């Protein structure tokens, strides 16, 4: 679990320092305040800078400029396109070999950058041919200092660093993430639910992971929030990639496609499958309220609280909705045993600079008890 968060130079987040986090963290703010960026940064952190995740995130925002043509042999164009794509991750799209790049992780005690954090940046490097003592010849990529202007024959690569672990990825290939360059440590488990992905394929796989285990019951329990007569669900279909979710209700003999039952139940299924697949890790949930009527939001929060505790999952969710915040407050207030800790973080865009305002659990509960609408 992350107990604080530090994000620097990532997308529109120039410098965010959140001093304390809870088990459940709700992030609110107007459009363009970097709510989703925080979730993306957390995914990068949890995956230990997984390069294919970086490209996946770029792709989802339409920022992956990888060439479609596989016949293109112009290395320079590959490099340019990769730089163009990756620079979208950097605050102000600034590509500089001098600055410290993107930093994501914990705040250390003196509120500075902790070494274990993830660091992403562009680097200049040269291919060096060396001969070992045994006479073996090997090549290696050697990063050179950003302010070294004497070396003119350099290449541009992307460096992913965590503590002493560093990997340097050349950008002279189309879709460079497809080649294995190693990693900077073992990633943690996480699930990232984007705004509108009700992905049949992914959900089917996630269900397979937990079918016939105790966790299947959690899924049924969650679906009952919306459809109290839910008995079972399954994923069916000839083609494993095109299976659809079906639901059996207690008062019906036939199973029904879940699709036919509206957005709400499908959204709950997506959330809950992600949750039961993130034990000891993180759930990142963009726009909690999507497709959910306000009356079910508190119940869903209650299930999330319960599973966060029993499966040891730290949850980060974003919202635009005051109903969502209210549901969160009430669930937190009803959680009589204080099983989980909650935190509300609002992001404000003040003349282009994103600032955070943190509400502690105590403040959230006071506001809820005294009818103050936090926003």
């Amino acid at each position, binding site marked *: 679990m992350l107990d604080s968060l530090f994000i620097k130079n990532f997308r529109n987040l120039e410098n965010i320092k959140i001093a304390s986090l809870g088990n459940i963290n709700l992030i609110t703010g*107007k459009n363009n305040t970097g709510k989703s960026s925080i979730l993306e940064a957390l995914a990068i952190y949890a995956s230990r800078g997984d390069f294919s995740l970086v490209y996946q995130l770029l792709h989802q925002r339409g920022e992956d400029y990888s060439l479609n043509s596989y016949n293109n042999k112009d290395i320079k164009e590959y490099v340019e396109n990769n730089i163009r794509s990756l620079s979208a991750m950097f605050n102000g799209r600034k590509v500089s070999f001098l600055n410290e790049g993107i930093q994501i992780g914990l705040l250390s005690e003196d509120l500075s950058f902790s070494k274990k954090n993830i660091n992403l940046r562009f680097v200049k490097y040269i291919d060096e041919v060396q001969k070992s003592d045994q006479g073996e010849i090997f090549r290696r990529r050697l990063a050179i200092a950003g302010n070294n202007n004497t070396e003119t024959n350099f290449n541009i690569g992307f460096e992913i660093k965590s503590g002493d672990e560093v990997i340097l990825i050349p950008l002279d290939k189309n879709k460079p993430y497809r080649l294995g360059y190693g990693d900077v440590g073992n990633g943690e488990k996480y699930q990232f639910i984007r705004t509108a992905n009700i992905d049949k394929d992914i959900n089917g796989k996630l269900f397979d992971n937990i079918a016939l285990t105790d966790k299947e019951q959690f899924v049924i329990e969650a679906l009952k929030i919306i459809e109290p007569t839910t008995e079972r669900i399954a994923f069916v279909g000839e083609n494993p990639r095109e299976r659809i979710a079906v639901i059996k209700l207690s008062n019906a003999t036939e199973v029904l496609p879940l699709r036919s039952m509206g957005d709400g139940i499908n959204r709950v299924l997506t959330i809950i499958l992600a949750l039961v697949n993130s034990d000891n890790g993180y759930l990142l949930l963009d726009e909690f309220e999507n497709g959910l009527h306000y009356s079910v939001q508190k119940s869903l929060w209650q299930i999330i609280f319960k599973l966060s505790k029993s499966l040891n999952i730290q949850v980060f969710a974003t919202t*635009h909705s*005051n109903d969502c915040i209210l549901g969160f407050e009430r669930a937190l207030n009803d959680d009589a045993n204080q099983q989980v800790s909650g935190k509300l973080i*609002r992001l*404000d865009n003040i003349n282009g600079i994103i600032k955070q*305002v*943190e*509400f502690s659990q105590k*403040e959230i509960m*006071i*506001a809820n008890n*005294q009818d*103050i*609408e*936090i*926003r």
Partner: protein
Amino acid sequence: MTEQKTLSKKLLVEGNDDKHVVLALCKKYAIAETFDVVDCKGIENLFEQIPIWFKISGIDTIGVIVDADIDLNTRWDTIKNLLKPHGFSSATEGLPDTGLIIGNGIQTFGVWIMPNNNTNGMLEDFISLLVPDSDKLLPIANTILKEIEEKKLNLYSKTHQSKALIHTWLAWQENPGTPLGLSITKKYLSHNSAVCEQFIEWLTKLFDQNTISPCPQE
């Protein structure tokens, strides 16, 4: 003032009486509805709410009216400590008799400690200062209170003496049982006393009558 909590300026008060006294005075002085009066239902709640209002989006002014009760200095210290984390550096100085108004560059904060920022007491002491000079009942009410206190017949505590006094006095007016706010409206109480005018000046200055800004909605 309005019940709907939508304005960017908030006046936090301890209770319903405080709220209605403020509302009645605003009416007498024709003060525009630039702020919401929030009844916090108790001083503990009020102190708990202050840090939260500082953080709520779109709030530019927070005013606070509290009773000094038996220790003005303790009240003032509590408020100073609440202000510290929010960059109101000048709050370390003393509390002016005219009520405090300070800014931190982003928000404005004001406090009036009843009755007059200078003595122990409460809203009811402030109210008793509004009893017209020509009034003949207040000295009698005072005498009777002293009498029952000497005989130890009073059930109220010493702290609530001014409360007992003003409500005794109110019980002898044209409509016995008139609440504090309404007694201003009904002109039992005069609103022209020096302390009252000082209070109104603090209120209008804090909630700058020229700027009415609705709280930005999401």
